[in-house]
């Protein structure tokens, strides 16, 4: 089942939408502007009637898998149910209708919400202040590293290296490099946790920070976190927390207490703002007192119940996004926190850990577990044995799950586990869902042993089968080097590509 592109559905005869006229005397662009300033040819946008548009997008919607329909076992992505109340809150005219350059006196409610959200996030992760400006997790990572760089600069220390574990998210080394640091990799030990010996050998007066997530990307709690923090701080470096795994321990423990100096959070993971098919998210960053002077400006300040935006921050790293961040996502996250409360957030994390361990236990009989449990909110299995014995790869299992009405787990990450299958069930899935997911894994693994060829041809029930990305890449390359005219990365009228 496929759907034509809007451009292919376009009909020249469609009447344009009825729109207000100017109703005032005034010039047309061609009366005033020199011809070279004017567009020579109108953009080739499709022409569709409203019913055609609604049907087109409804059909496209039906080609999507979503959390509103079923389970996403996506490790490190925390795909929880998105409460519908959040959407209602963000759409309130008192929020959605605000211009960012209204006077502060007219946006007191919005600023109060931001201030309260900041206080709540501080309470959850154990820090002094939080900036709500970053638009996504990677943006938050980079913002935190800029603050750490500014901190070292303010002390006239020239620290050029950031340590990143080999199991880290790809955004960690990328964010560090883009903040001007040299990335130094720290190895994991055989137990899946960071190797203290390797860390020791790589820490130096050059080290600006260690980036860590805890529990790590294998779903394991770094038991020696307090020792790690001491080692890092002893060299004068900072400890940065990648908040991708925050859902593991809300109300159980806090990165601030573990010794982390900067913490980013993904509101679109832990605090249920929807993923939107790849954003918008929000990636606030929390910091301890020593980093507060470097926060992006403006910050939200509250005095005697009156809220202001503080732009006078001489040591600030500046501005990382226009206006005040993804405000609509902040409203959603605040609504979630208010509904859940401290008790509900704590229970959510406890249930997430329970779900992960339960599911881990169920699939342990079928998939290899390279690391000993218990796990926290997620676990990493490996299809390595099936690959060597039956030629069935993690990717095959992922695709076979799509045929069984489940989304695929995160595969081939973390890089330290061969044929990795990373599963994060979250607290919003029922036992029945987890049971049926485990049953699907069992069925797939059994098939891998008896009839592996069938799995290579899956998925079959999805709107399209496995897409040939290699052939696509070859065609794109031909276009990019000027050997072909079909760009592949956009639609072109057939006559244009002939």
């Amino acid at each position, binding site marked *: 089942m*496929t759907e034509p*592109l809007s*451009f292919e559905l376009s009909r020249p005869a*469609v009447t344009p*939408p009825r*729109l207000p006229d100017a109703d005032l005397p*005034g010039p047309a662009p061609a009366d005033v502007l020199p011809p*070279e300033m004017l567009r*020579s040819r*109108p*953009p080739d946008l499709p022409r569709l009637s409203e019913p055609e548009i609604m049907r087109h997008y409804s059909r496209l919607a039906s080609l*999507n898998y979503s959390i*509103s329909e079923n389970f996403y076992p996506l490790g490190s992505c925390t*795909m929880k149910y998105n409460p519908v*109340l959040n959407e209602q809150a963000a759409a*309130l005219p*008192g929020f*959605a209708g605000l211009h*960012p*350059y*209204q*006077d502060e006196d007219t*946006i007191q*409610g*919005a600023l109060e919400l931001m201030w309260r959200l900041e206080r709540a996030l501080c309470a959850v992760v154990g820090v002094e202040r939080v900036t709500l400006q970053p*638009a*996504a997790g990677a*943006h938050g990572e980079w913002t935190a590293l800029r603050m750490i760089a500014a901190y070292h600069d303010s002390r006239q220390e020239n620290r050029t290296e950031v340590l990143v574990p080999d199991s880290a998210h*790809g955004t960690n080394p990328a964010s560090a*490099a*883009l903040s001007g640091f040299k990335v130094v990799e720290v190895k994991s030990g055989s137990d899946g946790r960071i190797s203290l010996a390797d860390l020791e050998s790589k820490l130096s007066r050059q080290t600006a920070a260690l980036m860590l997530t805890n529990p790590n990307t294998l779903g394991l709690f770094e038991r020696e976190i*307090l020792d790690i923090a001491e080692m890092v701080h002893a060299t004068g470096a900072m400890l940065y927390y990648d908040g991708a795994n925050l859902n593991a321990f809300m*109300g159980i423990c806090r990165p601030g*207490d573990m010794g982390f100096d900067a913490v980013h959070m993904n509101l679109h993971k832990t605090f249920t703002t929807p*993923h939107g*098919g*790849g*954003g918008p998210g*929000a990636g606030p960053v929390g910091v301890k007192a020593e980093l507060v002077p470097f926060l992006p400006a403006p910050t939200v300040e509250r005095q005697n119940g009156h809220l202001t935006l503080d732009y006078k921050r001489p040591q600030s790293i*500046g501005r*990382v*996004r226009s*206006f005040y961040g993804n*405000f*609509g996502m902040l409203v959603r996250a605040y609504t979630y926190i208010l*509904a859940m409360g401290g008790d509900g*957030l704590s229970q959510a994390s*406890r249930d997430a*850990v329970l779900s992960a361990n339960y599911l881990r*236990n169920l699939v342990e009989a079928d998939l290899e577990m390279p690391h000993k449990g*218990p796990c926290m909110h997620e676990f990493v299995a490996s299809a390595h044995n099936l690959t060597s014995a039956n030629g069935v790869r993690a990717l095959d299992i992922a695709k076979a799950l799509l045929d069984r009405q489940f989304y695929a787990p995160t595969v081939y*990450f973390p890089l330290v586990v061969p044929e990795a299958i990373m599963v994060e069930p979250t607290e919003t899935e029922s036992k029945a869902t987890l049971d049926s997911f485990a049953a699907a894994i069992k069925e797939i693994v059994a098939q891998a042993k008896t009839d592996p060829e069938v799995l290579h041809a899956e*998925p079959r029930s999805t*709107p*399209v*089968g496995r*897409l040939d990305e290699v052939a*696509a*890449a070859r065609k794109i390359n031909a276009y990019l080097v000027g050997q072909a005219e079909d760009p*592949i990365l956009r639609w072109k009228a057939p006559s244009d590509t002939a």
Partner: protein
Amino acid sequence: MLETIGVRSIDDLLVDIPQSLRLESLQLPDGLSEFETIAQVKALADRNRVYADRLTFRGGGVYRRFIPAAVAAVTSKPEFYTAYTPYQAEASQGTLQAIFEYQTLIAELTAMDISNASLYDGATAVAEAAMMAYVHTGRNEVLVAGYVHPEYVQVLRAFGEGRGIKVRRGDQPNKKTAAVIFQQPDFLGLLVDAPALTRAAHDAGALAIACVDPINLAILAPPGEYGADIAVGEGQQLGLAPSLGGPHVGFIACRRDLVRKLPGRLVGTAHDAEGRRGFVLALAAREQHIRREKATSNICTNHSLCALAAAVYLTYMGPEGLRHVADVGFKRAHNLAERLADMPGWELAFPERQFVNEFAVRVPRSSSVVKKLARKGILGGLDVSRWFRELRGVLTFTCTEVNDAKALDQLVEALAS
């Protein structure tokens, strides 16, 4: 569940966490019912003042526009807004195809070869474009020409600092210049000589980065027509509510030979074994999850749902609809500019310069003017001296299709009273 795992309580699963780190509870109030929650949130919303669309004449990067009902009807479909990033192509064809359509729409609008799948906002789009130029030319200075949105420049500076890119103001590029960045129309609404700036950039071996307004591209020559190398901008006007500045969407499009340096995701077509056309994330080898510290951008999550809104908006408007709203804004803004310039003591701040639907006027006692309008329920001009000291007493006003003829009369009357 505990029994299956073989433990007695959830606490038995938390044994790896040192006791000294364990919390009793969070210092937050207990949870609320849905009814109480929304009542509290609504109470905060009610403490804000919302100006009527038709009486909003303030722009500065965020504009009131007519938003077709179809936009929210599509973006509020849970199949779209609760879907994950489309890494599993077979289960994400809806999102992937919508992004592919968005990429094509942006490429058409800007007359550039290829657009990416979206960025966070206009400001980060400018910064990412500067990074492309830095990588492409191997030079580390970028030149900001004219009144580019001050917050975009601030973000550019913050990005540049980590990457070793120097940001200078001016329009005379030299051998060290990686790119000339200009905004068309600029932050004050003024039209710049985009072709001349582009030529100057190219003569110095630099790239030309055009930051453009997507609606006014229905009227104005698009970056592709005057040979700019990268087109960027803020897509808020394409169907997104002001929402105190976000979430909106940044767009970026470029020439064919720069595509490998484009940041963020790209969607392309591919085929399955049966020959059916589908859509996949393409050229992923440029991205952070593959290249790690060698990546030239760290962007992962972008603004897909906002890009979807933009796609629905542009499809609803079609070429004629888009041109119509652009023309209405043009006509009304020129009408208003003439009437405001006639007010005693008021004058156009740049009478020799052309504009589209936003313009700058120099007025006596600007802050009392703005306050007076607010008392009448009008969100009046933006005081730009906050960012540019030389523009003391200058306010910018904007008009779109939502500011009807009566609203303009109301504004002029309020000022005269």
